[in-house]
């Protein structure tokens, strides 16, 4: 059973990823697509300590050479953020999702796709004043089934 968590305010510049409690660096892409029908895609793409780009199943494979970094946020800063945590062994039947340390139930699906900006290349990169790249992928949604059998989709961060 591994624990994977994302702490964010919905913007890439304040988004950190934890694997088994340790904050990671060099993350390129996170993709979580879980639903009650058994779909379980949890993929992490990262740059390892050896500078190699790796793509791993978060709960099915051991992510070697992970870049572990110091905690970015103080407690006060962390209080301004939301934390999504997934505890799982790779099986949807054995998966617990928490938001801000509160275990959730009645989840129909969970979809998270966060992708860092591609490095700009070429001469235009010399002149770019953009602090935030325009082509960042940041989507995090969770769909619940209500007691009246209706479904409701919420943004996580």
């Amino acid at each position, binding site marked *: 059973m591994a624990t994977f968590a994302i702490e964010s305010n919905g913007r890439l*510049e304040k988004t950190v990823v934890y694997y088994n409690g340790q904050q990671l660096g060099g*993350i390129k892409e996170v993709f979580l697509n879980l639903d009650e029908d058994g779909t379980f895609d949890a993929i992490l793409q990262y740059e390892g300590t050896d500078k190699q780009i790796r793509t791993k199943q978060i709960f099915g494979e051991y992510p070697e050479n992970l870049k572990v970094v110091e905690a*970015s*946020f103080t407690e006060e800063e962390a209080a301004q953020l939301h934390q999504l945590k997934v505890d799982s062994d790779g099986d949807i039947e054995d998966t617990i999702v928490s938001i801000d340390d509160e275990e959730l139930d009645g989840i129909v699906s969970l979809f998270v796709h966060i992708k860092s900006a591609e490095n700009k290349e070429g001469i235009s990169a*010399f002149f770019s004043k*953009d*602090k935030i790249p325009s082509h960042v992928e940041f989507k995090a949604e969770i769909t619940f089934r209500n007691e009246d059998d209706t479904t409701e989709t919420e943004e996580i961060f």
Partner: protein
Amino acid sequence: MKDKLKIVRIWALLFLSIVTLLLLAPDIAEARGSFGGSRSFGRSFGRSFGGTRGLRRSSPGTMPRSSFGRQRNMTTSPMRMTPSQRAASSFGGRRLNSSGDYTAKYGTPRRSQTISRTGSQGMPQNYVVHNYGGYGNGLMMGYMMGHTSWMWMMPFHPAFYYTRPYYADNPNGTVSVYPPTFDWGKLFFTLLIAGAIIYIIYSIIRNKRRMKQGYYSQSSFG
């Protein structure tokens, strides 16, 4: 809006590159003539030697094979060149309509001396060299004696910012030679290009610093 700005910036860079090429191309082309060969008055005199006499531009398909018959081609005959045209082709100067064009602006020369040299056609030519003193005078003598350096084509050398010597035909068949003058346009474009290069380097450093310190400082991504 951002895309438009980028396009404008890229066009600006292209414009600067073209201006740089246009600015340096004649100098570089002329500088090539300074290398190799033997020392002579001017730099292209050596080309006249060897081979057979004739127009370099002629080709078998376009020109008659014999010098006799047909009509004389007046436009391409080197004999129709004025003395200063021949001189200009020898050491890359600027032709004046008359000596008055120069003296009206820079006054009368301190002294003038006549130098006789063999021209590109193998004929003697008298040059009246007007001495005004100063740096331009040294450059003029350098060009006339063929003592030029590739460094003169580099922006860090003062000679780069001067024109070529000026020439004017005299009624008596001699050619007046006047010293090069400071070229403010060249200085302006050089500063413009240097500024653009500094700006590009500054932009690269600034963006790298921002990426390192600012944007991704509190993120696992990047």
